[in-house]
């Protein structure tokens, strides 16, 4: 067993070119997959809380009575899709509008009557923030007595939808193709290593070596190459984080919002080991005497 390690190390040193190439190929493959996962992870985290920002405004009839408002709020609160309901009297609405217009607030200076209607703000549960459900909900809300008009951001909804679909599509394509690529690299690397030492292996067999004796150094080698690839990709991820992300977030505060899942990336060397051993095992295949 120790001799298998000696043989594996000897061959790693002897074939340094091809090994370096394999390690770097595997590393960059894992790196790109990680970056893809990292991006997907962040987009996902960012969009997860987006639905909270979505709200609908129900404008009520002019001079509506208090009881009618309470009844409407009651109906809305009973709806399963609803997260929260807030009644906004017209005075409050005017104050808000003035804040929104900021510099131009003198628009309202000469105003002596509030032209705004009373309104109810409704926030929906995360799951219910979709184009279909929202449209349906709006239809139902219109039927509530006292509701004059329903207003919400159509565009927000469609953008959210696009983001999710686009992210899924690109992410899946990238990860699937790169995953296949890495397995292929491991496979062909060991295949080459194996093929190169065909003659040596033949001699080993003729001298009476068991299959395990021949196989073990290759598996060890595959494991070492895969693990190294994983470690290098981990270093690459760290470099990416420290050199690129941290630098950028100094000048661009948006980057501070980016989440960096350490624990997820620490698994990279092990993924490398697994891929390396698997590739090696497949490449060696069945030995025959």
């Amino acid at each position, binding site marked *: 067993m120790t*001799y298998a390690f000696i043989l594996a190390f*000897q061959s790693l040193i*002897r074939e340094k070119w091809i090994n370096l190439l394999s390690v770097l190929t595997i590393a960059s493959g894992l790196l790109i997959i990680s970056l893809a996962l990292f991006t997907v992870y962040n987009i996902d985290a960012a969009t997860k809380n987006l639905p909270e920002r979505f709200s609908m405004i129900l404008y009520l009839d002019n001079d509506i009575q208090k009881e009618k408002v309470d009844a409407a709020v009651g109906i809305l609160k009973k709806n399963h899709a609803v997260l929260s309901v807030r009644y906004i009297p017209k005075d409050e609405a005017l104050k808000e509008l003035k804040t929104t217009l900021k510099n131009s607030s003198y628009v309202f200076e000469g105003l002596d009557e509030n032209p705004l209607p009373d309104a109810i703000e409704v926030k929906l549960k995360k799951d219910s923030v979709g184009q279909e459900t929202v449209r349906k909900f709006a239809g139902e809300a219109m039927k509530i007595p006292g509701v004059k008009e329903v207003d919400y951001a159509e565009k927000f909804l469609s953008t959210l939808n696009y983001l999710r679909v686009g992210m899924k599509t690109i992410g899946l394509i990238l990860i699937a193709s790169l995953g296949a690529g890495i397995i292929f690299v491991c496979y062909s690397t060991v295949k080459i290593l194996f093929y190169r030492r065909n*003659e*040596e292996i*033949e*001699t*080993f*067999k*003729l*001298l*009476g*070596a*068991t*299959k395990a*004796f021949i196989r073990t150094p290759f598996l060890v080698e595959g494991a070492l190459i895969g693990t190294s690839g994983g470690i290098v990709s981990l270093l690459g991820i760290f470099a990416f984080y420290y050199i690129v992300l941290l630098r950028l977030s100094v000048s661009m505060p948006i980057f501070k919002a980016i989440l960096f899942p350490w624990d997820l990336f620490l698994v990279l060397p092990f993924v490398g080991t697994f891929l390396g051993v698997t590739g090696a095992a497949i490449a060696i295949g069945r030995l*025959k*005497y």
Partner: protein
Amino acid sequence: MTWADDGNNPMIHFNGVTKDYDNQTALRDITFSVEKGEMIFVTGPSGSGKTTLLKLIYFAEKPDRGTISIAGWETGQLKESSIPFLRRNIGIVFQDFRLLHNKNVFENVAMALRIRGAGEKEIKARVYETLKAVNLRHKADVFPRRLSGGEQQRVVISRAIVAEPTVILADEPTGNLDPDTAEGVMRTFKEINAKGTTVLIATHNRELFRNSGRRVIRLDMGNLVAEDRT
């Protein structure tokens, strides 16, 4: 699994063995036996099938017809997983050397023992001993490509005998050796044979078996044409 000394079976027994390559018959209906502890020669012109005969004995080729038994093991009924263990009882001097070019002389010879799982101390002692026997102790650290043809051949001979196998198969073991060195190697084979090891030597160097009193099998174009005692 070791070779049990199971009664009175001959060490090597060929019965009507034929071996075809792609478009050519290398051996045709060969029958002969080699007894335990015998020293025997196989001779014949270039391409007559000597190497093929040896390959059949160490399971590198399978017969197309006929049966071969080695120390009582029928090759046809042998499980694949037993082959390495049976081979450990055979020391082979390959005609094309089959040295490991990325290992030095010591490691080349030691490989025969490592494969058998020998300990480091035993390996050192025995490798240096056999290298001394073929007069190559001073080349232990050299890589095969830096050796002369005859020196390489002697490394192969060392590797074949170092593990003290039950049978030694030597294919043209003196092709690159001068008469004096060849005689030394033959003396070593005789000593090993005297200790009970079966030795089979394929060669066309008639000097090796002239007046040796040993049995000689003659092949020609794959046929066994004569079996005589010199």
